[in-house]
């Protein structure tokens, strides 16, 4: 399909501010034209009437599990789940086996993605060797191999001196440092947010201070080193306040929030349901409110899913034995519409920004814009269709979602990557666009 016209959709591009019903012409994998009525004989056509046509959505925080944990997810299955969630680009966290701490692993991921992934996969490299928090990984060589950021997600660097060196190095290579902010001594043994619910259920608590002290440390180190520091899955109200403070001082700091952290509080967790167990944990209602407010005022820059597949057997255990993490790719748009847009907290344009230019300003992927000449990554979604998430039909290899059976209003409709439709919702049948005569 060399030429494709997206006909009559509401085109929303935060980079240019465009918000109008337009046709979008795609040719040879690039945006060829955006206009009121585009004539193109012989082009395939896709009727986007009533749909939002947005730059391809970016999820900057995904666990693809390959190499090493292919029983839970592969680059292929994860990328298909991404496309089914309306994402065209995803960043893969380095906590694979082996850890992505050197250029060989980076190249392996990129090669596997080129062959098997249906969306763009941008690897994130480890900060330290084996994410052990001691010696720095081969950051420069990984950058040459294609990483877009560094992070020891899930095993945060506890030694402030090591983090300082990592930030200095990352800065020199133009890479952002993404930190899973958690003081492992404070959170040790914890299974859920520390509060009334953890005390009630007799589960060990993870205090939000374990996030806050690391956000504070990293902000100070970012100022010291001049590095770009990005807070992964921010969950605590104090962290949001500190981030806003750091931004006001002009520091190069940013943050992402996950849909579950702005949609669910620890009080809404069914007792001992491992599909609600993740790090950071679901926090108090005050924290949920603060995350939403942070998104509204711009303290938070992006929505990322922290898609963390775990095989069923790993989640079918005593709560305290279960691993942390839940699926996220396929429900992100639905949750964001439900909690932020339909409630009037943010505009649709702001939502698109949180999934496109927001992450791209952190990562510089050269994605996230709908402009003539840009790579034709496009996300189509609607805001009204009622649908129910069935995790057993997920493209992911895992089934650990708290949103199974949840009914949404609005959701992803199609994903176009490099000009090619890689996924379309069953109900629209966009898989076979009509060709005009």
């Amino acid at each position, binding site marked *: 399909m060399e030429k494709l016209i997206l006909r009559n959709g509401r085109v929303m591009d935060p980079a240019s501010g465009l918000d109008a019903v337009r046709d979008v012409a795609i040719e040879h994998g690039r945006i060829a034209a955006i206009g009121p009525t585009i004539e193109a004989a012989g082009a395939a056509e896709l009727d986007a009437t009533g749909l939002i046509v947005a730059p391809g959505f970016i999820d900057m925080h995904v666990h693809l599990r390959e190499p090493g944990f292919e029983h839970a997810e592969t680059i292929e299955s994860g990328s298909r789940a991404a496309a089914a969630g309306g994402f065209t680009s995803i960043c893969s966290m380095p906590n694979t086996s082996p850890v992505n701490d050197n250029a060989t692993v980076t190249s392996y991921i990129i090669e596997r993605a080129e062959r098997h992934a249906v969306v763009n996969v941008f690897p994130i490299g480890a900060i330290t060797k084996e994410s052990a928090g001691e010696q720095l990984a081969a950051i420069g060589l990984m950058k040459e191999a294609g990483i877009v950021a560094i992070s020891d997600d899930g095993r945060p660097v506890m030694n402030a001196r090591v983090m300082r060196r990592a930030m200095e190095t990352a800065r020199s290579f133009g890479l952002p440092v993404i930190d899973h902010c958690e003081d492992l001594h404070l959170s040790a043994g914890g299974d859920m947010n*520390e*509060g*009334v619910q*953890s*005390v*009630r*259920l*007799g*589960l060990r*608590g993870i205090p939000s201070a374990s996030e806050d002290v690391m956000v504070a440390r990293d902000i100070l180190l970012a100022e010291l080193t001049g590095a770009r520091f990005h807070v992964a899955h921010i969950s605590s109200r104090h962290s949001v306040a500190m981030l806003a403070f750091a931004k006001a001082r002009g520091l190069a700091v940013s943050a992402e929030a996950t849909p579950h952290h702005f949609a669910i509080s620890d009080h809404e967790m069914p*007792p*001992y349901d491992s599909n609600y167990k993740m790090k950071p944990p679901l926090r108090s209602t005050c924290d949920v409110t603060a995350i939403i407010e942070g998104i509204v005022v711009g303290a938070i820059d992006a929505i990322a899913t922290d898609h963390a597949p775990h095989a069923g*057997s790993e989640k*079918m*255990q*005593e*709560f*305290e*034995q279960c691993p942390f993490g839940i699926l996220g790719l396929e429900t992100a748009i639905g949750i964001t519409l439900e909690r932020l847009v339909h409630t009037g907290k943010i505009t649709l344009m702001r939502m698109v920004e949180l999934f496109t230019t927001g992450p791209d300003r952190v990562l510089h992927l050269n994605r996230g814009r709908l402009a003539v000449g840009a790579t034709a990554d496009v996300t189509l979604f609607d805001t009204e269709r009622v649908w129910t998430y069935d995790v057993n039909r997920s493209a992911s290899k895992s089934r650990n979602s708290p949103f199974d059976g949840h009914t949404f209003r609005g959701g992803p409709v199609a994903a176009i990557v490099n000009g090619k439709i890689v996924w379309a919702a069953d109900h629209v049948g966009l898989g076979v666009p009509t060709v005009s005569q």
Partner: protein
Amino acid sequence: MPGGLLGIEPLDRVEIEGILDRAKRFQPRQTAGGRSDQLRGRMIVNLFFEASTRTRTSFEIAAKRLGADAISITASASSVSKGESLVDTLNTLGAMHPDAIVMRHAASGAPHFLARYLPTPIINAGDGTHEHPTQALLDARTILDRRPTLEGLRVAIIGDIAHSRVARSNMYLLSKFGAQIVLCGPASLLPPELAQLAPNISLTHKMEDAIRDADVIMMLRVQLERQHEAAFSANEYFQFYGLRPEHMSRARPDAIVMHPGPINRGREISSEVADSQRSVILNQVENGIAVRMAVLERILGN
């Protein structure tokens, strides 16, 4: 309670009163030995993932006095770590169709997790640091053997509250019946959120305040493995939170001393108090059987 007994928190007063009244009729002094045949042919599996001689024995005797067959399995931690998951263990047992499973597990919520997948009624015999419902029932029975009502009683619960399933179940039960509960322990073992778990709960770090005018003093066992979190040495702990004869003058003259056992003499309670007339510790053990008979009857009886 057709579905089993997972905790005190979800029960209402009528259900609790029903068990306590029935337990009274199973007390040895009310009936000769308390034996009956009413659960003849029923099969109860006691599945203990954590060592517990007294609770397991108590459930076994309760089952046998009702004429049921009771099998006890002590699954050591090592056999679980050999690879059979909790779900598989329970599925295997479930396939043998017992009429009820009595379960003790080190993980909070383990019986709740299994109850979602297994049709067999599950009786929680203690889950991690969450609940120990039959302990609270036998404690209430023991208090009510000496007092006409729980309403308005001042009950001090002293020790490692944070990690105590006995404390949680007792808090829920006593609160439902209008008792005033004072929780007392070292700061790191007494999270302030405890006060929000039920009405009529207050917290103090001072033993003298907890015991003042108390009708009931419940001492909790010091768990040695948690000692580091208390930031107290054994001696220091006994100095600040050990119950000694000199404390008793602050309590009501007819105050009783309780302990879920096994007691650590000289650690959380002095021998003088444990062996004094005030102590009802052995009555608790006795009532354990009566209350568990009442629970089994309630769940398995026709």
